[in-house]
């Protein structure tokens, strides 16, 4: 199982799912209408490292984080 957490203003609890790649996570999240607009603007981290490739492989216990648009300062 991997966990998916939603950071900052996304008001959503962490979810767990079986996923071999980030692509599986994308497919899973695409069924959630609430997340549609967030998905388009979120960056993604795996185990707190930013990733750019949908083919990134995942293993049991990995943590996927969705980071919506930022504005520090």
């Amino acid at each position, binding site marked *: 199982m991997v966990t998916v957490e939603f950071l900052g203003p996304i008001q959503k609890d962490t979810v767990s799912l079986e996923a071999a790649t980030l692509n599986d996570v994308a497919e899973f999240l*695409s069924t959630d209408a609430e997340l549609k607009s967030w998905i388009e603007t979120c960056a993604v981290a795996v185990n707190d490292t930013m990733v750019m490739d949908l083919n990134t492989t995942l293993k049991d216990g990995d943590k996927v984080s969705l980071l919506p648009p930022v*504005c520090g*300062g």
Partner: protein
Amino acid sequence: MLELFEGPVPVEETLARWYKEEDRSNYGAFIPFIGTIRDEDGIDGLSFDIYEPILNSWYDAWQKKAAASGAILKMAHSKGDVPLHKSSYIAAVFSPKRRVALEMIDEFVEDFKASAPIWKYDLRDGKRIYAEDRSTAIKGSGLLKVNK
């Protein structure tokens, strides 16, 4: 070192302490940037969420970049609520000569705005409202978008 404060950043204390920490380090230039919450659009203040693991790795990468130019960075930021006219953010560069520090403070603050995992909210009538229109999508965003 990255410093996070619950509420406003104590500007005078922080700047004085940073100055003291480096006053024998032989840096010729110390350039701080201090961000202050302005009274505009009827807000009562701003509020911040921070994701610390990624903020720390972003900051460590910048510290390495600064070191390659013989410089060091310091940064302080608020968590939670910050009222009007208080500071939520200080960034500073110390370097042997001014040119490195002048250029790096610009680049560092701009990348901070575009990449640091911090989310801003307007405080208005007791509500905390995500400042979506002033926020920037991090590089690589939209990765999980499924094209059907």
